[in-house]
């Protein structure tokens, strides 16, 4: 048996005296404590800036959803399956927002088998439609970790070396039914550099601990629905690239969007490649679209991999979306409000500074309020005062 890091279990520690956090002030009101708790909740997000670590920007991720009997449990409302599917939909949207040139596939496992819900694709719509339809499916039987991992592995092992290969398992059952030795599979996964992470919904399961430790992923068990959402969002950011991933130049095409109108003489209506494959949908003929620069096949949306010639087609804004991961904004310095007598207003939103502390940008020394600080770091990714100077990066 290999050595495991010693970790104290929760029941081995002493008692937590949670009532000691609440302190009353002179008039007996808890207002100050409540405000403090709310303030800390806003600041809970840990700004881990990776600094000069190389990130895996092109990601191929499989999400394995356990649809076994335990998913009908009603501890997450209305039941675990519906809640999980809703959160995975939100996850897929955020994932493509932050990693536009990456791909996602979904696998479900029940009745000791695993099957692919959607293939690896770069378009969020297909996945979201499939997830919405899966809400009606029944849960039953036991999940199979071995089958779902080998199914994911079959596709991931053919992916190019410069992309990061990941699997995220949402595991609710406490058992798994495997046809062969799963520890052998773990060794194979490690050799193929596939990183497996697990989010447990019931309790910690030892085989998941070993699996994630060996492959370099993370394992967490949820406390409640908001914690579940936080853990899922943790996987949206690109992970640090492993030392063995290769760096290469990827050939990509940047097609122009032609909007042809009926009055153009040369415009001819044509089918897009997506419509030729899909069975449903409206009329497939359209005038404009994106034409692959290498083989002139037509597509309606980007990013996509050309089915005819294999060229990856993206547009420049897709690559620009990932730039903020490469040049992350530094965290602002927190300081108490009492030290700042001169400034009464936040530089960005012009609101009065009423919170306990204010945040100062280290390069331009402008002062911001709590809300603007969160907004700037989560959504905007650039300091409004710094970018007003001419020396831009």
């Amino acid at each position, binding site marked *: 048996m290999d050595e495991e890091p010693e970790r104290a279990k929760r029941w081995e520690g002493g008692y937590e005296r949670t009532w000691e956090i609440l302190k009353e002030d002179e008039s007996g009101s808890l207002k100050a404590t409540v405000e403090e708790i709310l303030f800390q909740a806003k600041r809970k997000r840990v700004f881990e800036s990776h600094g000069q670590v190389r990130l895996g920007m092109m990601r191929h991720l499989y999400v394995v959803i356990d649809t076994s009997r335990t998913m009908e449990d009603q501890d997450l409302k209305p039941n675990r399956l519906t809640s999980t599917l809703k959160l995975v939909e939100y996850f897929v949207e955020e994932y493509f927002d932050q990693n536009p040139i990456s791909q996602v596939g979904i696998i479900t496992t029940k009745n000791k088998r695993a099957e692919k819900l959607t293939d690896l694709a770069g378009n969020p719509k297909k996945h979201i439609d499939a997830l919405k339809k899966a809400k009606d499916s029944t849960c039953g039987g036991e999940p199979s970790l071995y089958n779902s991992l080998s199914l994911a592995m079959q596709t991931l092992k053919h992916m190019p070396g410069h992309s990061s290969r990941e699997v995220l398992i949402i595991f609710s059952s406490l058992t798994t039914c495997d046809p062969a030795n799963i520890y052998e599979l773990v060794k194979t996964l490690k050799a193929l550099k596939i990183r497996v992470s697990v989010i447990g919904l019931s309790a910690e399961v030892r085989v998941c601990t070993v699996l994630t430790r060996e492959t370099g992923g993370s394992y967490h068990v949820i406390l409640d629905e908001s914690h579940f959402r936080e853990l899922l969002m943790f996987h949206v950011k690109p992970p640090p*690239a492993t030392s063995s991933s290769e760096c290469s130049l990827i*050939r990509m095409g940047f097609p122009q969007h032609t909007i042809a109108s009926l009055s153009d003489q040369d415009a001819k209506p044509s089918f897009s490649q997506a419509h030729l494959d899909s069975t449903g949908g409206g009329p497939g003929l359209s005038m404009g679209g994106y034409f692959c620069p290498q083989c002139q096949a037509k597509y309606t949306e980007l990013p996509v991999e050309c089915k005819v010639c294999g060229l990856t087609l993206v547009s420049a*804004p897709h690559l620009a979306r990932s730039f903020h991961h490469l040049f992350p904004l530094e965290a602002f310095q927190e300081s108490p409000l009492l030290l700042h007598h001169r400034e009464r207003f936040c530089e960005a939103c012009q609101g009065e500074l009423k919170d306990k502390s204010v945040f100062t940008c280290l390069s331009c020394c402008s002062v911001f309020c709590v809300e603007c600080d969160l907004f700037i770091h989560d959504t905007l990714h650039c300091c409004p005062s710094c970018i007003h100077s001419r020396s831009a990066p």
Partner: protein
Amino acid sequence: MVMASEDEVSLLVIVVDVNPIWWGQQANREPQFTLSKCLDAVMVMGNSHLVMTRTNKLAIIASHCQESHFLYPCKLWKSGDGHGDDNASTSGDGKYELLSVANDFIAEEIKNLMSRTEVKGNQTDTLLAGSLAKALCYIHRVAKELEAGQEIKSRILVVKAAEDCALQYMNFMNVIFAAQKQSILIDACVLDSDSGLLQQACDITGGLYLKIPQKIALAQYLLWVFLPDSDQRSQLVLPPPVHVDYRAACFCHRNLIEIGYVCSVCLSIFCNFSPICTTCETAFKIPLPQVVKSKKKKLKPST
């Protein structure tokens, strides 16, 4: 026409480019259209927006070379408070007091801004990304301060005079994606030269882009094209969308390319294959042709 209910707040933020060098040159070129005429047109637009519905809100930001300054509303006014002190002139012609106070305040602020800023250098390009970022933070704050049950729809209108600054590409794109995530439209009214960045902004967020043929008719264009909000725009015939060039520019020559090579580490784009990335200095693995092992002929066992 759908009547807007009391619960819908429509916020319009107008960002005006007041680069003094461009406006100074403009005053020499066309003396009948100066900065004050432009601001008159913007004030007409702002007043019209406030008058459309009682719950509409307005903000105006002036984008100067070294700072962006809020011309309206004033941060010293608290919500619900009387506007300023008693010296605020009530206009003699019976105009709605909110509008007259707003107009006077805007005129006062722009005069202070132009006189107090010392202009260094002679760049004629504008730093719009900073003003747009401040507008987004302001919209974010107003959305948080709404009363329960109220919904807000916001849009930003940019009145652009001078040229684009190429250094701002990355910051501009960050601002555009943030606006798209918050469902904020960015409209652009361009006075002089076409701006690729604003064309992309309008395309990505779903706003309108228009380059005005005649600058002195600015007020007309603002009222006819940019005043209706997004719900009403579907019922109007508006200028057709501009063709946006989304091709990437290569980092080595700044040419627009259709097929390029992208570094998997730093996402820089090159037009030709090179063994080392110039931005992040990683050495690439060059895909060599596979070496085919010669098959050893099996010796047949001699019978």
